[in-house]
């Protein structure tokens, strides 16, 4: 957040490649970590639950941003890849008694394989056609999980999962589950941040910016597009598996088309092509309905309405505000919250000489 400059001011290659671009970075990361670790001491269970939801959403959003923000391949099937990870973890845990630390990466790996398979059309088609083909992936995966009894487990396609345990420590309260989500999120964040400044990440960005030029300077387009699909789906799979361990149930309804859309909304509102932006977006989209309920309920109370009488209105209002925000962000600030944050930093960096 405050660990990097608000623009590109490096003059050396080493400077460009550094993970900690400013001396402040190490201190700020340490402080942030400390705050995150100390949070359970101060927060109540409800706040912890919200933090956990944000963490889960952020992992998925980082994954989608690698594919859509960095590689430029629009995906409307992110929810389906999460679903693959979710059911893989659930089947391994409930039927084969596999522990949590096997189910989580296995969910990611299977999702990566499925994601790479559905990435194959991206060799021949791109842009709008690809968006539609990933839409097909969403429906096909959903249908398969619902209609193959071995995967979905029959009625309602829900699989119950035992409480995940690590080193004899069950994750059975919101506080404990926080320590299940947080390390995975940190790994995902650092992993993505490292990926995008490596050779692979630069290949992704080259493909996004101009695929013909990328091919000419020797980037193997097919390989890197599939890799982007695989990495993105791996993140999705891990996020899906973590959801399953978090809720202790795998259900396809958590990962339908509207989930895919909300992840796209996260990275657009947060900022395309920015790992930090994905986290911003995840925070924003997760908090939006919660804050909205508080605000509208408060106003309704003033006029003497009860919660039950405005529940329908609230659900619809949420949809409208949600859609409206997407449109507004795209029209006004297409680079999202990340750019807004950068603008704020720039203001203070150059203050009082803003030009």
């Amino acid at each position: 957040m405050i660990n990097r400059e608000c623009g590109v001011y490096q003059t050396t290659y080493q400077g460009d490649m550094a993970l900690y671009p400013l001396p402040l970075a190490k201190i700020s990361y340490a402080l942030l970590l400390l705050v995150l670790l100390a949070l359970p001491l101060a927060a109540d269970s409800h706040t912890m639950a919200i933090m956990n939801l944000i963490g889960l959403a952020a992992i998925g959003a980082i994954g989608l941003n690698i594919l859509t923000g960095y590689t430029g391949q629009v995906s409307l099937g992110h929810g389906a890849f999460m679903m693959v990870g979710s059911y893989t973890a659930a089947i391994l845990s409930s039927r084969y008694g596999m522990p949590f630390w096997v189910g989580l990466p296995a969910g990611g790996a299977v999702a990566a394989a499925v994601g790479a398979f559905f990435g194959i059309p991206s060799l021949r088609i791109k842009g709008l056609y690809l968006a539609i083909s990933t839409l097909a992936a969403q429906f096909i995966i959903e249908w398969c999980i619902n209609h193959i009894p071995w995967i979905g487990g029959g009625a309602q396609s829900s699989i119950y999962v035992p409480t995940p345990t690590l080193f004899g420590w069950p994750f059975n309260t919101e506080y404990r589950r926080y320590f299940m989500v947080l390390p995975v999120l940190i790994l995902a964040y650092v992993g993505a941040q490292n990926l995008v400044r490596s050779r692979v990440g630069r290949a992704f960005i080259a493909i996004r910016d101009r695929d013909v030029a990328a091919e000419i300077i020797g980037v193997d387009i097919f390989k890197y597009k599939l890799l982007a699909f695989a990495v993105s789906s791996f993140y999705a799979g891990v996020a899906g598996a973590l959801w399953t361990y978090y809720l202790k149930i795998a259900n396809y309804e958590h990962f339908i088309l509207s989930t895919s859309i909300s992840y796209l909304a996260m990275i657009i509102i947060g900022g395309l092509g920015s790992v930090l932006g994905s986290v911003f977006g995840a925070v924003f989209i997760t908090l939006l309905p919660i804050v909205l309920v508080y605000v509208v309920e408060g106003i309704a109370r003033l006029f003497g309405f009860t919660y039950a009488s405005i529940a329908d209105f609230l659900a619809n209002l949420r949809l409208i505000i949600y859609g409206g925000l997407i449109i507004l962000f795209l029209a006004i600030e297409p680079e999202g919250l990340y750019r807004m944050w950068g603008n704020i930093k720039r203001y203070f960096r150059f203050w009082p000489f803003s030009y």
Partner: protein
Amino acid sequence: MFFMDPFFWDLFVNGLLIGCMYALVAVGFVLIYKATSVINFAQGDLVMFGGYIAAAGLSLYHLPLWTAAPIMLALMVALGFAVERGILRPLIGQPVVSVVMVTIGLALVFQGLAAMIWGAATINMPLPIPLKPLIIWEIFISPINLVAAGLCVAFLVVFAYFFRRSRMGIAMRAVADDQQSAMSVGINVRVVFAISWAIAGLASGIGGLVWGNMLGVDTHLALVGLKVFPAVILGGLDSVPGAVLGGLIVGAVESVAAGYVDPYVGGGTKDFAPFIIMILALMIRPYGFFGREIIERV
């Protein structure tokens, strides 16, 4: 053989009739894509909105059909104009993901608005059409399907005539071919964009009328829009005859597949089979039957 089976022909013919209705929605979609290169994920929601307006007029305000339908169509045309002017025009030149997302955001707004104004409960759309099925050569055909298909075919014929013969239609074809040259011969491209959205709104309005009558009007009506994607990909994203053919194929395939496969898997084939064909089409012939072939090997 299966094609001697009257059951097959029953499914096939009814599928084709449904396909006419898909074709209608698909044409609106293709029109927008051709003229403005926008993939409209809100097409189904326009259909839903049209359905809601018509159903509200007929059932809630008890207007006769001959007033409710024209009011609905006029409102849909206005809505098409408004969307183009207010939301899509500022986004010209933005990347694909933005344009896709804007129409998705629009779809969410439509769904919320419709449910907020008219309630989330399913509204019936009473049209004066008999319910008793006709039996033609052992094939059961419900009159609603027949009327709907007739309405769609009529719209498509008028539309084709407009596209071939009228001054505006020719201007629209010119813009679809090459925006810059169209501009240089004095065609007002902005007007063409607006007219495209208006016609798409009109098509969605008719679609809303017939689909709403068949399925009942609630926010689920918007799911019709998702079926449009297989249809337009099969036919070619920028081809109007392709959209019609694609709609017919999707209608026939989903009906036949549902009839033969559903008993074994317990339902849901209808929503799934079109997408399988679509993936295959994308892998083999991404530009569809009649789409403009863009050769680009990267």
